[in-house]
């Protein structure tokens, strides 16, 4: 897994001169901004766990973590670490007042039972029909599914947060996934370092692009055809 919160120095060059791709923290902040007040939201490993740092204390967005936390807060300051309290990425976090702990069977009852308004996951590939892949690139790759398949079928909405391309510049937004699926037709929106797109019946619809990035330049680095949001 990539280190949380840091801009990867090996990331592909911007697709257009003068364009300023969003950092991992900005991707998380963009998603956090769009979560409706009062939502119950699960955040998974990778960029998604950073979302907890971008929900201000005055907002009431209740964050769930698969390892049995409801009401998870941001990462702790150096003097407020609880060494028994970690998120899905195994990093120290906090609990907001009103938060609760539960065991794994109840935690996944929350996930699978349709109680979550939204889950936010990472991905290797996302297809224009909402299929996504985030657990295995090949049979020798040490497949690691975690809670992703449960989340993908259980939450009312599924958002993906990921880089737009791989480190070698290949598009992660594709017509059809080539990696093994985590779930078919599950994803409704994606936040990348270059754009925010909805997954619609017609395919990817661009809601927003990174500062200085034109629609045409975004299309050049994206395998799947893009549409302008209505």
């Amino acid at each position, binding site marked *: 897994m990539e280190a949380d919160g840091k801009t990867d120095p090996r990331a592909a060059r911007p697709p257009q001169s003068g364009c300023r791709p969003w950092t991992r923290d900005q991707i998380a902040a963009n998603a956090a901004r769009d979560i409706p007040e009062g939502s119950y939201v699960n955040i998974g490993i990778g960029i998604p766990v950073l979302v907890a740092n971008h929900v201000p204390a005055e907002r009431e967005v209740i964050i769930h973590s698969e390892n049995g936390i409801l009401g998870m807060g941001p990462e702790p300051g150096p003097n407020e670490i609880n060494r028994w309290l970690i998120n899905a990425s195994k990093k120290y976090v906090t609990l907001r007042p009103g938060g609760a702990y539960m065991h*794994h069977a109840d935690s*996944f009852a929350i996930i699978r039972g349709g109680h979550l308004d939204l889950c936010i996951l990472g991905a290797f590939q996302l297809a224009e029909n909402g299929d996504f892949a985030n657990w295995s690139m090949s049979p020798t790759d040490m497949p*690691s599914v975690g809670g992703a398949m449960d989340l993908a079928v259980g939450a009312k909405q599924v958002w993906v947060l990921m880089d737009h391309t791989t480190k070698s510049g290949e598009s992660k937004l594709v017509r059809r996934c080539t990696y093994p699926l985590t779930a078919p037709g599950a994803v409704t929106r994606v936040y990348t370092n270059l754009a925010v797109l909805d997954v619609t019946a017609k395919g990817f619809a661009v809601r927003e692009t990174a500062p200085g990035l034109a629609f045409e330049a975004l299309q050049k680095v994206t395998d799947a055809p893009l549409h302008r949001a209505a």
Partner: protein
Amino acid sequence: MINKIVQNMAEAMAGIRDDSLVLIGGFGSIGQPNALIEGLIEQGAKDLTVVANNAGVGHNGLARLMEVGRVRKIICSYPRTSDPVVFEELYRAGRIELEVMPQGTMAERMRAAGAGIPAFYTPTSVGTLLAEGKELREFSGRQYVLETALAGDVALIEAWEADRWGNLTYRSSARNFNPVMAMAAKLTIAQAQHIVDLGALDPEKVPTPGIFVQRVVHVPYGEPTVT
């Protein structure tokens, strides 16, 4: 008088056989009962199948059990966690078997075992490689996959407090798989940071009632140092 508190690790590990299916609590190393795993290494049982969420962190606890060659197969949801050095080497060398399953399916299979439910249908994994070869059935227009209960011969549990009847509490997110595994094994052994008098635990706040627990060892190790 019922007293499940044993005086030493040898007593806690007595009778664990080769080829056992061992459920080990924890998410990463939080809630992972490292002292019991050390005890199991000392006890010597081998050819174990282990169910745990991850495949060990660094060289301690579960990673150490694999490193000394006691684990034939690991069933987990997420082997690619932080620092899985020992597992990675064994896996690449073909010296350990891996079965990956969705985390919620893993938890529910053990809950079902503890609850007397032999199998259940879940929507998780439908349309993926992990559902291949499994029975599918439609309910109200949606596809579900059949999963069977997963019972352990032994469960190793990390608790915060315990009393002599085996009632257990947990600390923060170290609860994770522990209460589920405690109910799913024939022999459930818990390590606890604190032993308290019978009646001292608030009965409204006992996540694991003592009926699920056979043995308790006092292991006041302090704070976990890695995650």
